[in-house]
């Protein structure tokens, strides 16, 4: 099964993934629909920590602690994509799932899909309906810097292992110079900001 993988060193914190996710999960399906809409659902969050940025979301664990804990029949694994999918119709926002999620990937609020005008859980659904049409998740499509990629785990792991080994043994590859330069600039900018704050 393909999953979303994050290379946080490539994230420039542009939040395109957040915007694309919000649009993809909005009934209006357009950027304008999000303006002033409290029910907007964003399933990925770019967490800024000083000069680094971490796009965090559900990892669709297997086995998944949330799936094993749901007492309402609201969570299921999609057979086709392996995504852990929430059915808000059945969700009672009891938080049994969130209680055991190590990644804080499940949140609660009134979103457009919430019935009865009360909060339900919401989480990444891997855009599993779109995947069946051969698309990739909206956040991955939107990511310009290559921080988010959608692929099988094992080939990615093998490729990364070879790359790391090359860097370690031969000093080849590694971060492209421009990239390293950009990251260094950002680190310095934040260090200056920290100094002026204190």
């Amino acid at each position: 099964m393909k999953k979303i993988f994050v290379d946080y060193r490539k994230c420039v914190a542009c939040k395109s993934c957040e915007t694309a996710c919000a649009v993809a999960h909005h009934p209006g399906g357009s950027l304008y629909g999000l303006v002033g809409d409290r029910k907007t659902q964003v399933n990925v969050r770019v967490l800024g920590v000083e000069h680094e940025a971490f796009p965090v979301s559900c990892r669709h664990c297997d086995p998944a602690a949330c799936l094993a804990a749901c007492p309402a029949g609201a969570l299921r694994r999609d057979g086709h994509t392996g995504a852990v999918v929430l059915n808000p119709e059945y969700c009672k926002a009891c938080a049994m799932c969130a209680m055991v999620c190590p990644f804080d990937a499940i949140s609660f609020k009134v979103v457009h899909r919430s019935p009865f005008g009360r909060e339900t859980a919401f989480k990444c659904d891997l855009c599993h309906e779109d995947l069946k049409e051969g698309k990739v998740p909206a956040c991955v499509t939107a990511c310009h810097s290559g921080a988010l990629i959608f692929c099988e785990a094992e080939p990615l792991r093998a490729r990364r292992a070879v790359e790391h080994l090359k860097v370690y043994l031969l000093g080849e590859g590694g971060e492209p110079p421009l990239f390293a330069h950009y990251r260094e600039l950002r680190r310095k900018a934040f260090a200056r900001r920290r100094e002026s704050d204190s």
Partner: protein
Amino acid sequence: MKIVTVGTGMAAAEFVETLRQGGFTGEIVMFSDEPYAPYSPCVIPFFLAGEPLRHVFWKGEDFYTRHGVTARLSEKVVEVDPARRLVRTERGVTESYDRLFYAAGASSWFPQTDWLDTYGVHGFKTLGDMEAIDDQIRQEGVARAVVFGGGFIGTDAALALRHRGLQVTLVHRNNRLLSQMTDLDGGNFATRKLAEKSGLDIRLQTRVADILREDGRLKGVELTDGTRIETSLLVVATGVTPNSAPLTGGNGGIAVAEDLLIDPLICVAGDVAVTRHAVDGRQGLHATAPNALQQARVAARRLLGEEVSFNGSINTNVLRKHLDFPVISAGRFEGEAVTFERGDLFRRVYLLEDRINGYMLVGDIRLSGYLYDLYLSQKTVGKDIRGMLADTRGDWYYRSVMGLAPAGATIS
């Protein structure tokens, strides 16, 4: 092979579904003293709060037909005869089995059983209880209710009725609500905040001494402090007892080991099972849905021939009903306490030899899964724990990975 389940609750439903998904095609008979498809006890209070009944049937209303199960409903099993491999019901129906899955759950415990003869006095455990309360509210337009018992079920009941629009008085004998899942400080904090946010009228260190009735109907209750409250609806949630009598003759639950068996043909799971705690190793009733579900899955997979065993229960729980104000806890409240409190947020971890022995999180769900993982794995936490508890931005983990100090105020 013919499989019989005593109970159609969460454990039994999960057990049967796992069996069928695993390719088991033999005969399955399920017994229940109630007339329903499998329902979720965690969801039924939401029906009372006004949501559709069909949502309580967490595995679908067509569960029995979909899984090819013979359902013997409204048949209370009163005797299991392991020698002859038979179960017998109150009405005298018998059924033979090759394997028995005993998950009869637990029943409400009432301080005075004769209260139940009065119209307007209810338990809060079964879908039948919910329907009776719902009927009464609809027919009489009940505006005021009293809930006796402020544990998990009682608080759940009070919040559901409050959400329905009733004025609710919650009477609890202890000095704080949810006393089993909180320590004194955390419980006091949770009680105070819940009262503020929900508008419940909470009476602590008080009990319902007697009920006042007229023509067999409830008119009011009298509390131990002498107060009289006029009400036609009383919910009694003062505890539950495991339905172990058909198997053991007593109501103390049934102890099982990792194989969940009490004899080679009888498997026990759910709220009636006494199991070992996965972290501290103590035997006890760990009656929560995740434990029941895990036991059921293990039992089913063992029957399907897999070599799996039950790794133990965990006493973790969360109360988050109708309010965005969760109360979460796990483990034991013994050891060195590290606390963070700010505004609506209370977090406390108990450390024993630098490992998490128990924790409470009140007011916010974040961090709970991470702590749960640390607790389960019994990893050492070091001084990191202080920065972690004070983290309100959700970036503690990432800061620690980057070698940065926690962002917020740390606690000493």
